């Protein structure tokens, strides 16, 4: 191996792009470690508290692209208080001080302040790409700084962030000299944007391939933008309300027809359903369609639209499509790989318009299906068994029956057998989310069959510690385990604490683990941070080891206790 000069090895390593593979390469021997670290440009950090920015910078001086994830997944569902942590500022500050030529920053579930965005915009001359997913803490002022200062910006992609919209002129802050934009997504912003500035920006961005607008962009602006950017590949429509007999609508039809490259369509945040025929000309080429924010589109109009989308590979939709609509999907979208059905009324289980029937239809009609997120009113074992038979290729299978702990409505049995069939049939399953009435039995199946499982989400399930033990003992590749409202206690938690070092993190809330149990884990495993989140201030007054812990989050780390935890987080 060491017969080759370093440059040759480096060249070979260039072809190795996956993070996992590069990590493996670095472990072979010292010289490979050295060569790998100098040539590494892209780093992915799944938990921002597992490592410090200083150590990252020291190891990878050639870093160009950094991906960071902050809060635990359940923070998406309000189970983690807002100021728990995940601040990006220290990272940007450390990178800015160093000689790192950062070009790309991708953040998920992190707290991003305007101050950080400003610092980011001023510190890296070649900064090209900012992607923020499910983040919070910034306003449009921060975006203005990015627009104004990042002279070679190619990508500004904001997905589902909570942004304080000051209705400022952040879009106008892109200077006339900025012509490098390839991707601009501001669909999650709630406020007005300067439409003239937007039009001018799009006009001077010949490389623009992806444009996702927010609700404040009206139809006639959309039409003008499409005329200026017929090369678009990905389009997110903001407002789609207009009079079908108006001039504007005719112009739009013409504009859309010119956009022959569009493969991905989303938005319709406001929609007049009887005007969808203008979209038909581009439907035949679509590979991704996201209508999950378009509650105004349902029934026949929706079905008719879908019938035009024969090449669809990914479909994100609301449950108002109904089982019947899913039947149309099954007949039309033979290339479908990913399906996500979101609840249009998250608070009322009875209004959920899809049941096990829709899923069975899709599984029968779309043999390439490998990724599923399905919110439904009910599920049966029989249906799951059929789905498992029809689609053995699932990589991601996330099922959420809106009524927690609901059994199979036909047999009144728990759904153990159904999910068991899924894990047995889908040998490549990496991610699984369970729901409905489940006993320890389903976990026995998971432990036995889900050999590739990396992430498991459990809620309101199991009878005893055995459930958790089956999983911890069986799933060798498990990286993330998140559990809520299950009767798992200290016995399960403490059975094999070494296992947690092989995982990224473990979340347990509203379970039976005690303070004493958590302390025990922390004592035995100094390489883990064991955090107790307790907002009710019980911990201050009552440090009895026997008391149950409301929320526990533990994760492996190389840098010990974090210093930025708020007062209601105890790190044991």
């Amino acid at each position, binding site marked *: 191996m060491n017969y080759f000069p370093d440059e040759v090895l480096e060249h070979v390593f260039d072809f190795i792009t996956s993070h996992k593979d590069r990590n493996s390469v670095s472990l072979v021997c010292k010289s490979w470690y050295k060569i790998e670290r100098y040539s590494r440009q892209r780093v992915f950090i799944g938990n921002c508290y597992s490592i410090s920015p200083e150590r990252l910078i020291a190891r990878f001086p050639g870093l160009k692209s950094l991906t960071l994830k902050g809060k635990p997944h359940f923070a998406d569902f309000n189970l983690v*208080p*807002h100021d728990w942590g995940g601040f990006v500022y220290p990272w940007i500050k450390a990178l800015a001080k160093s000689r790192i030529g950062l070009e790309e920053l991708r953040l998920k579930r992190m707290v991003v302040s305007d101050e950080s965005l400003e610092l980011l915009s001023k510190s890296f001359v070649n900064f090209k790409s900012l992607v923020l997913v499910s983040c919070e803490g910034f306003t449009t002022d921060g975006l203005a700084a990015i627009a104004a200062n990042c002279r070679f910006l190619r990508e500004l992609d904001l997905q589902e962030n909570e942004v304080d919209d000051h209705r400022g002129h952040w879009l106008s802050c892109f200077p006339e000299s900025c012509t490098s934009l390839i991707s601009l997504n501001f669909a999650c912003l709630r406020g007005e944007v300067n439409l003239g500035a937007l039009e001018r920006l799009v006009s001077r961005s010949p490389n623009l391939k992806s444009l996702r607008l927010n609700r404040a962009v009206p139809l006639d602006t959309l039409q003008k933008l499409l005329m200026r950017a017929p090369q678009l590949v990905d389009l997110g429509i903001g407002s789609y309300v207009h009079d079908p*007999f108006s001039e504007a609508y005719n112009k739009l039809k013409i504009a859309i027809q010119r956009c022959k490259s569009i493969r991905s369509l989303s938005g319709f*945040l406001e929609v*007049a359903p009887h005007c969808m025929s203008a979209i038909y000309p581009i439907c035949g080429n679509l590979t991704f369609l996201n209508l999950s924010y378009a509650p105004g589109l349902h029934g026949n109009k929706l079905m008719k639209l879908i019938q035009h989308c024969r090449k669809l590979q990914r479909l994100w939709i609301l449950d108002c499509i109904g089982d019947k609509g899913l039947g149309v999907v099954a007949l039309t979208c033979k290339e479908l790989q990913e399906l996500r059905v979101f609840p249009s009324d998250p*608070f009322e289980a009875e209004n959920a318009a899809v049941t096990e029937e829709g899923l069975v239809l899709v599984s029968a009609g779309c043999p390439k299906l490998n990724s599923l997120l399905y919110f439904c009113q009910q599920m049966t074992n029989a249906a799951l068994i059929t789905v498992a038979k029809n689609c053995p290729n699932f990589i991601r299978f996330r099922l959420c029956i809106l*009524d*927690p702990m*609901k059994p199979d409505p036909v047999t009144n049995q728990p759904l153990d057998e159904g999910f068991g069939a899924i894990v047995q049939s889908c040998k490549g399953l990496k991610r699984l989310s369970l729901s409905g009435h489940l006993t320890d039995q389903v976990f026995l199946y998971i432990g036995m069959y889900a050999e590739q499982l990396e992430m498991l989400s459990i809620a309101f399930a199991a009878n005893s510690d055995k459930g958790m033990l089956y999983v911890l003992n069986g799933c060798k590749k498990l990286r993330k385990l998140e559990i809520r409202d299950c009767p798992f206690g200290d016995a399960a938690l403490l059975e094999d604490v070494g296992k947690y070092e092989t995982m990224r993190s473990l979340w347990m809330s509203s379970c039976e683990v005690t303070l004493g149990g958590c302390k025990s884990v922390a004592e035995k495993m100094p390489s883990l941070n064991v955090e107790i989140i307790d907002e*009710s201030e019980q911990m201050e007054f009552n440090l009895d080891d026997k008391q149950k812990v409301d929320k526990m989050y533990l994760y492996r780390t190389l840098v010990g206790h974090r210093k930025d935890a708020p007062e209601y987080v105890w790190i044991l």
Partner: protein
Amino acid sequence: MEVGVKMGMKGGGDEVGGKEKEKMGYEETELRLGLPGDGEVVRKRDFSHTVDLKLNLISTSPTDDKDKNIVPSHLDPAKPPPAKAQVVGWPPVRSFRKNMLATQKSSGSEDSGEKAAFVKVSMDGAPYLRKVDLRMYKTYQQLSDALAKMFSSFTIGNCGSQGLLKDFMNESKLMDLLNGSDYVPTYEDKDGDWMLVGDVPWEMFIESCKRLRIMKGTEAIGLAPRAMEKCKNRS
């Protein structure tokens, strides 16, 4: 029932939207901390209790809908269905999405209105009928323009650039219109009567209009008695 409810958190109360509040029937202020004794004992520690509650809710709701005659004494169909115990963080939907859908629901009623009001439109002499959604328009003029466009292929410029209605509103032109081969929009109302379009306020019109008919001017004479009167007087 307070089981399974832990409303309000220190961090942010925005996740529990106004809609949920109404259903719960709470009059308390928005942030309501789950006190340690309260939530703990009932919700978290006693799984069998929670299971019973859930199954209870499941079994009672179907009977509610199906048998209105045989209503269990403790259920009153006049009252809204019992508020389901809302569990924090369930269903697992991102709060961004929940908020967005809530916003769309509340403003949706202004924008696209309730269900579309499609009515048939026939025009004398045209080979087939059309349909329009009356809720797409806000004034008679808009409707008139739309209709003119729809049927422009069937009239040889008889409607005039100002559309059917404007001419009609003008009395002197009315005579020409009624005597000539111009067209007049009429509609059938809820009572089954054929009325002239334009008399009542727009909102009232779309509520009562069942179908539209664009009549030849000469045939519309019977619908405009006052104009007829004048017509007679002048000639």
